[in-house]
């Protein structure tokens, strides 16, 4: 997957074009002058794959997701996203990349002054989609997550589970190339959790790469084709997928495998 090429003045990591959606190579992250919260993280995510990111609280799952949705730059290492070096990516090109990533934040991060409808419509409005084209899909999405009758409600008046569903609807409305979700089913009942998981699977089948950080082993069981990445004290404890529950296959399938799925 990664190969070193020595044609330039220094070694460069090169990838096969369009073979992978994300590459991390020896990535480290520290906040300020503190110790590293992520150390030597190396993995590859392929288009159309479904990944679970597991690990104990404080293992670095959220930090790793922040790197994935370009909210943080790593302290060291190399990251390529969508075939482009994300480390040296000019700031003005970040919005274009972020629009290709849907994010479900652990704390939902809904915009408090906007209604549920406007929160879900936000990614489309940011992308410049016309109001006429926004109304229908947003209404459908809210119906689908069971909030059709709460479309005018502000986040403060929604329950935790309802806020989470709005956050998920917002993350998937623009049908991103990659969906990153941090504990997306933590505040919903098992029935809704399963329903949301099926939504993620549907998106996945349409080609979206899905990365879900979770503690919920039942959730992992419900997606048998998924791949596991497990973080332990800031290190990727199972880059080969051997610790997957139940153990089945490597965390980084070959491009051929990913395409076949």
């Amino acid at each position: 997957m990664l190969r070193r090429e020595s044609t330039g003045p220094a070694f460069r990591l090169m990838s096969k074009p369009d073979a992978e959606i994300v590459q991390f190579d020896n990535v480290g992250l520290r906040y300020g002058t503190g110790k590293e919260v992520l150390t030597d993280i190396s993995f590859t995510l392929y288009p159309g794959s479904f990944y679970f990111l597991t690990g104990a609280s404080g293992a670095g799952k959220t930090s790793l997701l922040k790197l994935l949705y370009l909210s943080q730059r790593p302290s060291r290492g190399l990251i390529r996203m969508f075939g482009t070096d994300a480390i040296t990516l000019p700031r003005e090109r970040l919005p274009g990349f972020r629009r290709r990533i849907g994010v479900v934040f652990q704390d939902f991060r809904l915009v408090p002054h906007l209604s549920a409808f406007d929160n879900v419509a936000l990614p489309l409005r940011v992308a410049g989609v016309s109001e006429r084209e926004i109304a229908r899909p947003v209404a459908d999405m809210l119906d689908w997550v069971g909030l059709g009758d709460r479309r005018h409600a502000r986040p403060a008046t929604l329950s935790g589970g309802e806020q989470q569903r709005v956050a998920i609807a917002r993350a998937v409305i623009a049908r991103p190339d990659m969906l990153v979700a941090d504990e997306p089913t933590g505040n919903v009942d098992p029935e809704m959790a399963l329903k949301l998981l099926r939504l993620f699977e549907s998106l996945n089948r349409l080609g979206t790469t899905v990365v879900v950080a979770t503690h919920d082993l039942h959730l992992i069981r419900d997606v048998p084709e998924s791949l596991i990445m497990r973080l332990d004290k800031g290190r990727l404890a199972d880059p080969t997928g051997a610790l997957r529950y139940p153990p089945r296959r490597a965390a980084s399938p070959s491009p051929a495998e990913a395409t076949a799925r």
Partner: protein
Amino acid sequence: MTALASRIPGLAAWRNRANGDVRLLPQGHLSGPMPWVIAIMIALTIVAAGSGLALRNAARAASADLEGGVTVQIVSAAPAERNRQADAAVAALKGMVGVAAVHRVAQSDLEALVEPWLGTRPGDDIEALPIPALIDVRLSGPAGRDRIAALRARIIPVAPAARVDAQAGWLAPVFAAIGALQWLAGGLIALLALATVASVLLASRNALGNHRETIEIVHMLGGTDRQIARVFQRGMAVDAAAGGMAGLLLGLATIFMLGRQFAPLGSGMMGAAALGWSDWLLLAAIPMLGVALAVLTARLTVLAALRKML
């Protein structure tokens, strides 16, 4: 609007962009102190600019009036000699190249000039006072030093008691004072503009701080700095336009009141200080310049702050 937007290329896209932008951040127009701050700044700027323009007009009118003016005084205690020399000086000046007009001020006019100081009691013989004979000379161009010297050279042989002075010279200290006041008005306008910029800068930073979380979310969803800056610009434009309108009305009302206070003075210089239509247009443009300055400041402040965020 929908039908119009669909017919005009680009208008629909602009409207969609504007609608979308407006929903990115909460809009708290006309609720904070910013419109009032801008109204006060604009009103003070209009008063300062109006005063500066009035002073400029007065100085220009006086300068144009006095530019080619020369006063010849025949200072002699003997009335007969004074008259003789005055007549000789008038005759010498009338034939001189570059002299447009020569007018000897009548004795009755001179008496009227000194009357307020000396009184007109029955029996007073004002004619017995050694009041100089005055000759008002208009040159066809500015009364420079060379021309004054030439006039002296022509007059002194026939009227040795003559004193020749450029009229503009008498008012030189007044012009200098007017110039200083104009600079003061300009300085005040510059300071007010700086204060406006500082106020907008602080307000923008404050708003950025209040909406930081929302801005981060919009960033994470792929929002650009320009999209976010547009929201702040639009908010500031609304506040500045409202403040500018109020400031314009307040400033114009102040100028009208000042004009009414000064008008009864009846001085020629005060009359010349009246504002022309171009001056009024300039004053009316000040709120627009204020809005542009506020919007530009908000945009640059927000973009600079956003550049520090990832």
